[in-house]
């Protein structure tokens, strides 16, 4: 029987959630017995090769490319998981949400104390995705099926969630795994 496919992506995140996924250590060998990885930074597949059972999304949406990728995930995956706090509520990138975009640009490229920009250039190559007015959590852009909180969710949390999902069993997350203080 063909193995179900899993895709992953990091949008406006720090790749910490992906690091946590790698943190499942040798269980990754068990994982690839259970699934094939499709589009993902882990195997560097850039485009979907077919329908996926599960899409794991790290980070929220801070630019148009994030939105595009997320919509692509929604189109190609049966189940989408918001993985980590940035995907769930914007996280650190969303700290800019109360500051006008112009001020963010000025601080980042001109006025910030560590900025070196003798020609006073604001990056504006047409290949650069346009920034959204604010950072959106994933479920504000497309419908998300599950939310796995944590910064990042621990390897054990990710492992338990994936195994439960793939074996169609109810998820059992012991208190230690979802306690954050």
């Amino acid at each position, binding site marked *: 029987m063909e193995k179900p496919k899993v895709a992953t992506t990091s949008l406006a995140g720090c790749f910490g959630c992906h690091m946590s996924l790698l943190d499942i250590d040798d269980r990754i060998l068990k994982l690839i017995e259970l699934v094939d990885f499709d589009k993902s930074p882990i195997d560097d597949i850039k485009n979907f090769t077919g329908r996926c059972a599960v899409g794991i999304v790290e980070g929220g949406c801070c630019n*148009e*490319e994030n*939105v*595009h990728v997320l*919509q692509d995930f*929604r*189109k190609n995956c049966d189940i989408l998981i918001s993985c980590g706090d940035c995907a769930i509520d914007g996280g650190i990138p969303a700290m800019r949400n109360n500051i*006008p*975009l*112009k001020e963010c*640009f000025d601080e980042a490229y001109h006025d910030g104390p560590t900025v070196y920009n003798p020609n006073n250039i*604001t990056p*504006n190559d*047409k290949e650069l*995705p*346009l*920034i*959204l*007015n*604010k950072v*959106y959590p994933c*479920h*504000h*852009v*497309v*419908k998300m099926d599950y939310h796995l909180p944590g910064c990042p969710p621990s390897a054990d949390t990710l492992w338990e969630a994936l195994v439960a999902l793939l074996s169609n069993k109810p998820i059992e997350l012991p208190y230690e795994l979802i306690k954050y203080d």
Partner: protein
Amino acid sequence: MSQKLSRIIKNACESCGNDRNRLMDIVTAIQKECGAVTLEAMDIIAKELNVQRVDVESVVSFYSFLSKEEKGKVVIRICNDVVDILKGAEDVAKVFSETLGIEIGQTAADGSISLEYTPCIGLSDQAPAVLINDVAITNLTVDKAKSIANDLKNGVLPESLTKECGDGNNANDLVKSMVKNNIIKKGSVIFAERQSEAGLEKAITMSPSDVISLIKASKVRGRGGAGFPTGMKWEFTRAAKGDKKYVVCNADEGEPGTFKDRVLLTEKFDMLCEGMAIGGYCIGSDSGIIYLRGEYAYLKAFLEKKLSQRKEVGLLGANICGKDGFNFDIRIQIGAGAYICGEETALISSCEGLRGDPKTRPPFPAQKGYLASPTTVNNVETFCSIAKILEKDAAWYSAIGTKGSTGTKILSISGDCSNPGIYEYDFGVKVSDMLKDAGAEDTKAVLIGGPSGQLIGKTDFNRIICYDDLATGGSIVIFNSYRNILEIVKSYLEFFVEESCGYCTPCRTGNVLLLNKIEEILEGKGEPSDIKYLEDLCSTVKVTSRCGLGQTSPNPVLTSIKNFREVYDAVLKLNEDGRQPTFDIKASLEVAEALQGRKSVIY
């Protein structure tokens, strides 16, 4: 200026014995005289009372009738309760705004007039209504609003705007208000003919514990809505340890659509004082406080006169009715526009000169209430009922109403009906009979118990008003078939968002999320899964909020989903591609496109 301010503040503080627990009275007096409690004023008050500035500022910033910034000499508060909106409050607001040349929420440049919205002011039976300073103006039309606005512009004093007084004590020299009582149905307990003070006179011939036993036997329950047995509450308070105990009357009816206490205070104040004195006798207290909502400040002088009259004839003060050692006095504590202060522990906080934050229960007020002393807090109508119960007896009273809900209940009926007003029914009255009496036709929905109660539809009109079926503190709002249920739900959520004290997250944030979702649904951007989202969120807010506000604020959403599901289903659309209809990629890119001077190549 500074010296004058100093003098005003010193006088205000001294008149309250420089007691920090009387901070509400002090800041209210200063607000009235100076139009604001400025930062400078706060510093002086703090010094006089030997507290921190933040203690004063936290109070001033909490109550909507108090402000740091100077308000106009005349403050026009337009009631924007749902009933007032149905009756044209928005048109009235527009006329005020245009005629005076100021936006809602603004003060005129010359400092003469401020214009603002305020939630239910207890005049739903004569909506749309406004408060101009303490003067209530009722049954407004666009034309009347225009002429009032012009009068005010020409310097006419708010007091002179009342051309014709209402009935009963509304015409009393100390009230002189155009407010009408609108007592439409008199029942056998509160509005029946009676021998005044008979209840109190009888009580003092009995032992306090016998009086409590009689009240328990009558099975009377609290009229504020929660329905706790009054006899039991008094028994607990009597048994609680403490040298000093308090009887507090909750006259802060802020539940939208309620106005019964307004009428009881106007017409049945002696009966209320009689009930409070009986309470003092029962629990062993010599001090009573009536917490009068700021919206009813127009009654304050009249009520204070009444209190001093009672003192003169020995019904208050020392050795009441000639009974040696039975001392009881009442003071009036004025509120300043905060719905949450109707919650008993928030009310106690307010009486103590604090922000109207609810306190954690337990300990309940019966153990630890006002100034940490055992306190009983009861509704106006409860005290009035007690006076009658003592006058008659427990068996007479418990024969009225239903088994679990004895006596009568005063309902404040308003909305889409031809006879809005006060109705005293025996408990157990059918909703359909009530609608008939009120002259309601083509009724689509009835809100029982205000927005924190439940919104019911036709299939429930054969149910009855009582604690075991449809419980209510007295607010009944009727909506006809032209009304948009979702708009009504939205308005009430806006009310709760505004009135949440902000202490606990589920209420402060949860109500905003509920409102956002209802707005999305109204914009046609809802999908079927939103129902579950709303239900889950409602349950979180209800279960995890600290006080009654958050525990009931989701009710308009929950009961409208339950009883008017078709209204939701009609606008919820299944969203095939999994994209959120509320997310507008084009709008979210506008700022960046303008800043960077290029258009998106993807979207």
